[in-house]
């Protein structure tokens, strides 16, 4: 086996040094009746070239070479090549959690830089070293709000990603958490403030909103924060499309921000691994789950970094820990760190601007074949929008696939009240030609006849 660095004679020699006659003697501790007397029924050992061929074959049976308008929590953005060049350095790729600070300063400093940039982007005071993803991060943020307030109810906006909400339910079900949902305004696509006000009680630990929300609409974070704080509850803002922060005001008024950083240079990779992160106020640090890196000095007074405040964590506090989380997503956070440095202060603005412009163009073009929902109320949007059509979006998508285009995500399974609606996402990766081709198919298919007059109103 090519990964094993021993010759048969090495093994013989070692067995002799141990004082046993065969390797089986070392497995004598496993009772005979449970020892496997046959070979495992898994595929035979392959050459590297065969493995590559096999995966090329898997890869070929997927959507390669398609234009995509899919977003909804996973976004296609350009990944600068230096990301993979750097994260594949063995010193990052093949090291463990940096418990031994003297020989892990590289990882520690990179995480410290990540934490700093997340604070800058989200308008919060502190950030952790990362969480599994945006969905589990939202659940952890809620449990954090429960510990901070001593209350056990949370209110989640229905405009939060449906899968995030499912994860919250799973996490909360045996922790005594009562999760209420609050609806969105049909006109604006944003949290219905009146319903929210009515739902808030003195048992509410937190309110969870997403901004830009699942429909791409940007919530009025400040107004919601004020309402939530009046009741002594905490506001959790979830961000799924992190690129939005290049153009959208950071949710500084939030108490906890739970962000999915996949957009920062992380491959789509069929849904994972991604990189969640929590950011919050300094005064809440003791209830923050996950790892934290802090600056300190060594015995000679030289600056260095360490994992700190570890007493919050499971390996010390065991059943009283803030969370059972053990790993973070260090390597993925490193991808994000590199990405954020590549684009930096100006590039993130330029990038967000291109997303805005392309989405605005696409919304105008697709709006000719249907109705762009939540558009008439001056709701600000980032790079996603909901298009309602006469035809079932599944049918539309079938027609688009013939043109090698993946259309918007049909929403009926989560939001039946929106009818034939789909969530479209347009990023800097979508060319005008792709947008025009999709629009042509939408129009040609008679996606909508009923909106002809609305279209005229919507156009300048």
């Amino acid at each position, binding site marked *: 086996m090519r990964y094993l660095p021993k010759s048969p004679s090495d093994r013989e020699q070692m067995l002799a040094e141990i004082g046993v006659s065969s390797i089986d003697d070392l497995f004598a501790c*496993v009772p005979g009746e449970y020892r496997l007397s046959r070979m495992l029924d898994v595929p035979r050992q392959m050459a590297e070239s065969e493995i590559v061929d096999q995966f090329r074959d898997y890869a070929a049976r997927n959507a390669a070479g398609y234009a995509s308008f899919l977003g909804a929590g996973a976004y296609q953005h350009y990944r600068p090549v230096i990301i993979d060049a750097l994260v594949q350095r063995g010193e990052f790729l093949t090291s463990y959690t940096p418990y031994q600070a003297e020989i892990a300063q590289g990882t520690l400093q990179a995480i410290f830089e990540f934490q700093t940039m997340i604070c800058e982007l989200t308008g919060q005071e502190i950030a952790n070293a990362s969480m599994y993803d945006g969905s589990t991060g939202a659940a952890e943020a809620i449990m954090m709000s429960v510990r901070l307030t001593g209350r056990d109810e949370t209110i989640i906006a229905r405009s939060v990603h449906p899968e995030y909400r499912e994860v919250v339910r799973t996490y909360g079900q045996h922790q005594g958490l009562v999760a209420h949902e609050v609806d969105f305004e049909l006109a604006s696509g944003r949290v219905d403030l009146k319903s929210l006000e009515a739902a808030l009680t003195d048992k509410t630990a937190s309110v969870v909103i997403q901004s830009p929300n699942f429909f791409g609409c940007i919530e009025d974070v400040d107004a919601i924060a004020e309402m939530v704080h009046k009741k002594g509850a905490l506001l959790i803002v979830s961000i799924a499309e992190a690129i939005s922060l290049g153009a959208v005001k950071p949710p500084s008024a939030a108490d906890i921000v739970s962000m999915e950083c996949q957009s920062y240079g992380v491959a789509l990779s069929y849904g994972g691994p991604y990189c969640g992160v929590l950011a919050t106020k300094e005064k809440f640090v003791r209830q923050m789950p996950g790892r934290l890196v802090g600056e300190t000095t060594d015995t000679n007074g030289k600056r260095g970094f360490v994992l700190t405040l570890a007493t919050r964590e499971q390996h010390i506090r065991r*059943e009283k820990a803030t969370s059972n989380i053990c790993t973070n997503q*260090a390597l993925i956070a490193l991808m994000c760190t590199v990405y954020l440095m590549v684009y930096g202060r100006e590039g993130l603005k330029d990038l967000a601007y291109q997303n805005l412009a392309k989405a605005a163009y696409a919304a105008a073009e697709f709006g000719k074949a249907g109705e762009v929902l939540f558009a008439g109320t001056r709701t600000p949007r980032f790079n996603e929008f909901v298009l309602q059509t006469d035809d079932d979006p599944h049918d539309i998508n079938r027609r688009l696939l013939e043109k090698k285009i993946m259309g918007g995500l049909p929403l009926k399974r989560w939001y039946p009240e929106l009818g034939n609606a789909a969530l479209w996402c347009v990023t800097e990766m979508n060319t005008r030609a792709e947008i025009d081709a999709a629009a042509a198919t939408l129009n040609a298919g008679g996606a909508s006849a009923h909106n002809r007059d609305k279209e005229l109103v919507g156009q300048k």
Partner: protein
Amino acid sequence: MQNRIKKVSRHITQNEGLIFEKSSPGKKAYKMPPLDVPEVDVKSVLGDSAREDLGHMPEVSEIEIIRHFTRLSTWNYAIDLGMYPLGSCTMKYNARVNEFVSRLEGIGGAHPYQPESLSQGVMQVMYDVAQCLIEITGMDTITLQPAAGAHGEMTGLLLIRAYLDAKGEARKKILIPDSAHGTNPATAAICGYEVENIKSDPVTGMVDIAGLERQVTEDVAALMLTNPNTLGVFDQHIHKVADVLHAKGAQLYMDGANMNALVGKTRPGDFGVDLMHLNLHKTFSTPHGGGGPGSGPVACKKHFEPFLPTPVLVSKDGKLHFDYDRPQSIGRVRMWYGNYGMFVRALAYILANGPDGLKQTTEDAVLNANYIRAKLQDVYDLPYKTPSMHEVIFSDRLQTQKGVKTGDIAKRLIDYGFHPYTTSFPLIVPGALMIEPTESESKEELDLFIDAMRSIAAEVEEDPQYVLDAPHDTRVGRMDEVGAARKPILRWNPK
């Protein structure tokens, strides 16, 4: 003392500040393509939600980023540099072909919501790795969704709870041995269970069956057991343990952190385990990456099948699809399908090994640990004489007589060019040195490690203060962790 060190030499490393200290307005590492659609006015599109500026985000050039991270990387120890004997963490070789195939366009670029008809290849990877893991564990079914080992534990306990609830049994307790990982009790707590510790047999380190019989009542939902346990000891009474639990309707959950000692030699499903998680980043060689991502699939017996997280991957009429209609499911534990990229890597690892390679891998891991044990047991105390499997646990009992503790020996090991072993764990061994070489070490590397450990033992006798002051040759000395915790500085701030 330097002449004793054979593996490493002193080496120049570059200094490097924080990236923010290199930033200067106007430097760029990016170039946007020209905008091919009409321009928009940000203020009028976003109104009050428009952002003014991006604060202290850095502005640097590409070469500075490359140098920055390359310099930082040289300050890290890694498997690629040498033996990384962190017990319980399984720091084995991470093959590069795994990285290569996970980045193929149709795989790395697959969107989780793309149509199933255009996802048959990526879904087939999930199906194939699931079949392999089911065969390796001897279980009936599996969920790949959990994002890490601890997340797998949570999923496992939720499955147990759903299964018992469906039977109308509201049991309250989870039993956990005193040798367990900290994640076990933390997980039980977040799943709403009371934790009851069970004592290990003081001589063998195994579960004390008589004690277990007393503690297992109708109120016990499950025992969470690591096997081999954190002492590296295979619990020979494992089937009796399962019988005691099953007689009272309780489940046996196995923490699969140490599955790398069993692959191809014995299967948990055959020795009475009801469900278990696997750490793909341990046994199946997906990279640790400085602390993640992990991946923690949960394999289980048939009776848990209705409760698996949604969606469940099923094969029907020659096509794969996701089944969301699972009324008894515990729900999702994370969005989409799990840390997909890790499934690709784990499958590539399994294919590179085949059945013979997997078996040889396990044998070599056990061989290496026993070789270290044989070569060090005269200079380090061996608190449990029970046979070791993939890791060996010594204690610092002999060295504490000179005032040197396990953490000090670990720091001195750094000077010898090795990453420390796991210190002070498991908790049932005071001053533990937990050493897991894995199969990835050659005899030559092992001999260097043994030599280093023996040399340190000698230093403790001759000059304990020198060991206490270690490490001597690292870029930075021991860090002021007390100061870091008292006055946390968790982000950079401009001067």
